[in-house]
Every structure is written in structure tokens, then in C-alpha cells.
């Protein structure tokens, strides 16, 4: 058996919870420039299943948090400015609500995906770790006329996910249980000045909690003190949970070569920004993206269920038949779904092969393994709408 690849010798950043991860036995690995826990002693399988049955606490402090503060003092001006960079209806996000969005490039490709919350007086964005420096520069270059771009570097971010998340958080923040999916804003948690959103990236009901960095460990300790229901969960299970939930991982399932339509993210682009809408276009790549809304894209991200037990992983080429010479697409995420006790994957295929139940073949170690196009999410989500 081959040795696991050695960690690259680059200097890695640490989150405010690094010492806690180590003390909890987290196995630390390099991820997006950070040293992060990939798993704890129970292992990815048990951590995944625990999150689905009780609650898991994730450190996602490596992600970027940015405030967009309107120079005019009117949040609508910050929202209008942000609409120059994303195809979403940002002006229409009510105060106290959050929405999923993508930064696009002039070709209609996706530069990053993000969450945008309206805090009433300003917007708060959460972006991916690997993209955050580029995102901040993009925001500064494009929006400085209208907004102060304020990276919130002094905040950590925790995610509490799973069916018991609301009951656990309610012990520290009475308002938590009254929040609906995608509610977001400042809340006091365990006496700390936090930002809380009822969201996450596991398909489970749950919360993301932004906390001042120097109080992150206090909050994590408090949430973990109920050690029967809440376990610390590593990035390994975060990845298998989001895969079962059919959620895109930036840099894998979506990137600068995929548009929101190709990525099956049409649901995230509101009608007001599409052709015929009051604020159609006006974002990078609008011509291409809106043409795809009207006429369709040539390819699409689909869910895939391998018929056997063998996981079909990222990079596997897809074929229309068992003996076709030319591939038709590629798997962009794939692995084993612990909740389903079966392999799951997603990838891009031509539109003609994107219909549910279409049989395809994936090349795995030189064998053509059969799989079928399947509906996502693979595991039903449990958001409290």
C-alpha cells in the first residue's frame, strides 16, 4: 500500500480553534492554506452519521467573512453595487435574511460562490478560503465607489449542524429556535456578540455562528459541553455530508469554466436578474449566462449513483456506453455516502445525457462501471423553512 502523500512544506495558517482541535485529537492536514482537522478519533464515517442523527460542530474559520458597508449609509446602495458582480437579486434580500450567490467572470464562469446576508445597515459575505484574497480585491476594485470593503479578520466561524443543532443552540441563544432557514443577523450566544445564520452546508438543519476570534474557544467549549449530542466534526465528514446533499464544492463542481446554468444553479438566480426581469443582466458574463437561461446550456452538472459498491471519484471520465471510445464528461466530486451506505458522485454530461435515470459508465482503474443520473440531493435536506 502506498504511503499517504506527505504534507507540502509551506507555512500554513491556523484558525483561532487550532489548539482546541489538537487537544480534541483532531488529525490536522493542510487545506486551502490552513492547518485544519480532517477528522477526530471516531473517524469520518461515525462523524458523518453523528451529524445526521444528532449534531456536529465544524470549524469553518478558514472561510472569509467580509462586511460591505455602504458609504451612503443605505444598505440598498451596497446591495445595488454588489449586483454588478453577481447574478443574484441582492436588493431583494430583506433585512435579517441571507441568500446564496456566485461571483461571475466575463465568460460567465464562476469565480467563487458565497453567502450574502442583509444585516439591515450593511451586508455580510461569507466566501471560500481559497478565494478570499481574490474576492476581497474584486470587491475593492469594483465597489469602492459605493462601499467600504471590510474583511472581518478578527472573527472565527463555527457551524453547528444536525437535527439537534437548534435545541443545543437554544440553550445559549433563546432566539435560535425561532429562526427560519436563511435568517441571519447579530445574536448574543453564551453572552458573546455573534452573527448567527440558520444555514450550513451539510443538508441538515443548522447554524453558522460568527464569533470574535478571541472568544471562539469559549463558544466552542460551550457548544461541545453537551458531549452526548454535539461532537467535533472534521473536514472529511463535511465533504461527504455536502456531497450527499448535492451541494457544489468550489474548485471541483463549479469553477471559472462552469456557468451557474451549467452548474444546475438556476434556482439561485432570481427572475428579476434574468431576461425580462426589472434588473436583467448587469453582472459579468450576463450575455452568456442569460442566453443559457433562454436557450439552454450544452452540458449540465448531474447527480450520479454508481450501481455497484465501488466509489467513483473526482476525475473519473464518463462514457455513454461500455465500449465508447470518447468520453462524454467527467466526475467532479465522488465518494462514499455514509447515510446511503453507497457510493455517490456528481459530474458534467451533455444535456442529451442529463435526464434522470440515464445510464452512463465511469472509468475506474480501467474498468467501465455503470452508474445512473440521479436526483439531488441524494439525502433529503431538513432545512426549517
Amino acid at each position: 500500500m502506498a504511503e499517504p502523500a506527505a504534507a507540502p512544506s509551506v507555512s500554513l495558517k491556523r484558525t483561532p480553534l487550532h489548539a482546541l482541535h489538537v487537544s480534541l485529537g483532531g488529525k490536522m492536514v493542510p487545506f486551502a492554506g490552513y492547518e485544519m482537522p480532517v477528522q477526530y478519533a471516531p473517524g469520518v464515517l461515525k462523524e458523518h452519521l453523528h451529524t445526521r442523527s444528532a449534531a456536529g460542530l465544524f470549524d469553518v474559520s478558514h472561510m472569509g467573512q467580509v462586511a460591505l458597508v455602504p458609504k451612503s449609509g443605505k444598505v440598498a446602495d451596497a446591495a445595488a453595487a454588489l449586483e454588478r458582480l453577481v447574478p443574484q437579486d441582492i436588493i431583494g434580500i430583506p433585512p435579517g435574511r441571507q441568500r446564496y450567490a456566485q461571483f461571475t467572470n466575463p465568460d460567465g464562469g464562476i469565480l467563487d460562490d458565497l453567502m450574502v446576508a442583509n444585516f439591515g445597515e450593511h451586508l455580510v459575505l461569507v466566501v471560500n478560503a481559497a478565494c478570499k484574497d481574490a474576492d476581497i480585491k474584486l470587491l475593492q476594485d469594483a465597489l469602492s465607489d459605493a462601499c467600504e470593503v471590510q474583511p472581518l479578520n478578527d472573527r472565527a466561524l463555527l457551524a453547528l449542524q444536525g437535527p439537534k443543532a437548534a435545541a443545543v443552540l437554544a440553550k445559549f441563544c433563546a432566539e435560535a429556535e425561532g429562526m427560519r432557514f436563511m435568517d441571519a443577523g447579530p445574536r448574543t450566544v453564551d453572552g458573546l456578540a455573534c452573527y448567527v445564520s440558520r444555514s450550513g452546508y451539510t443538508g441538515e438543519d443548522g447554524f453558522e455562528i460568527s464569533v470574535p476570534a478571541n472568544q471562539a474557544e469559549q463558544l466552542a467549549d460551550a457548544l461541545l459541553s453537551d458531549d452526548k449530542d454535539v461532537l467535533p466534526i472534521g473536514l472529511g465528514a463535511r465533504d461527504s455530508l455536502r456531497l450527499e446533499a448535492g451541494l457544489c464544492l468550489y474548485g471541483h463542481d463549479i469553477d471559472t469554466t462552469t456557468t451557474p446554468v451549467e452548474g444546475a444553479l438556476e434556482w439561485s438566480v432570481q427572475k428579476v436578474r434574468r431576461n425580462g426581469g426589472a434588473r436583467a443582466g448587469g453582472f459579468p458574463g450576463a450575455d452568456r449566462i442569460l442566453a443559457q437561461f433562454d436557450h439552454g446550456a450544452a452540458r449540465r452538472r448531474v447527480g450520479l449513483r454508481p450501481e455497484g459498491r465501488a466509489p467513483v471519484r473526482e476525475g473519473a471520465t464518463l462514457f455513454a456506453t461500455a465500449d465508447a471510445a470518447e468520453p462524454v464528461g467527467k466526475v467532479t466530486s465522488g465518494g462514499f455516502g455514509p447515510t446511503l451506505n453507497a457510493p455517490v458522485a456528481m459530474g458534467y454530461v451533455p444535456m442529451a445525457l442529463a435526464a434522470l435515470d440515464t445510464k452512463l459508465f465511469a472509468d475506474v482503474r480501467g474498468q467501465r462501471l455503470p452508474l445512473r443520473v440521479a436526483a439531488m440531493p441524494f439525502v433529503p435536506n431538513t432545512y426549517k423553512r
Partner: protein
Amino acid sequence: MTTLYTSDHEWLSIDGDVATIGITDYAQAQLGDVVFVELPQVGRALKKAEAAAVVESVKAASDVYAPITGEVVEVNQAIVDEPALVNTDAGGKAWFFKLKIADKGELGGLMDEAAYKAHTA
């Protein structure tokens, strides 16, 4: 019966001219939860260092190499049916396959338990 080890974390238990081969407890701990195992066909002739089997954890796939040259005479269907056995009993019930040893001279290049312990220390 002698047990030998490779630097790639396979173990071999030698019984006459047959070697039973598995992965070490150290290897299974590195892999994490094993969810899938692919074994060679009985009758397949394997060369030393050839990829012979595949073991997949939730996160990644790893090859298991033939530590010596030989012919596959038996495979362990139990770990195909229950891959988690590799995590719970890597050195015992979770053997992968048995090889009819082609050249006992190749065994000389393998590690004994003390040398393997030093290798993984």
C-alpha cells in the same frame, strides 16, 4: 508460521509455499474507515510490486501491491462483503488474498516485525 512486512504496509504470513497477505494495522489506521475492497481473481499471476488489490476509505483509494511474485490461490470474500473488517481486524480476519510463492528468495528482502515497527515509528 512467519510474518513478514513490506515498507508499503502489507503483511505476509508464510505457511509452506503459500503466503497470506493483508495490510497492517498501521495502514488501516492511516486510511480511516474502509468502505470498499477490490480483490484479484483467483488464478491471476502477480509479479512482485504489481498492484493486486484496491482498498478504499471514505476519502481515497489505495492500491495494495503484491509483496512477492506468485499466483493467487484464494481471496477473502468476507472483506468484500464487510469492508469494515479491515479496520477492526487488519492483522487477522481481514486478510486480502493468498499467493502460491514463486520464489522464496524474494522473502529475504522483507522486514521482520521489529524492523517494521522501527519503519513506522
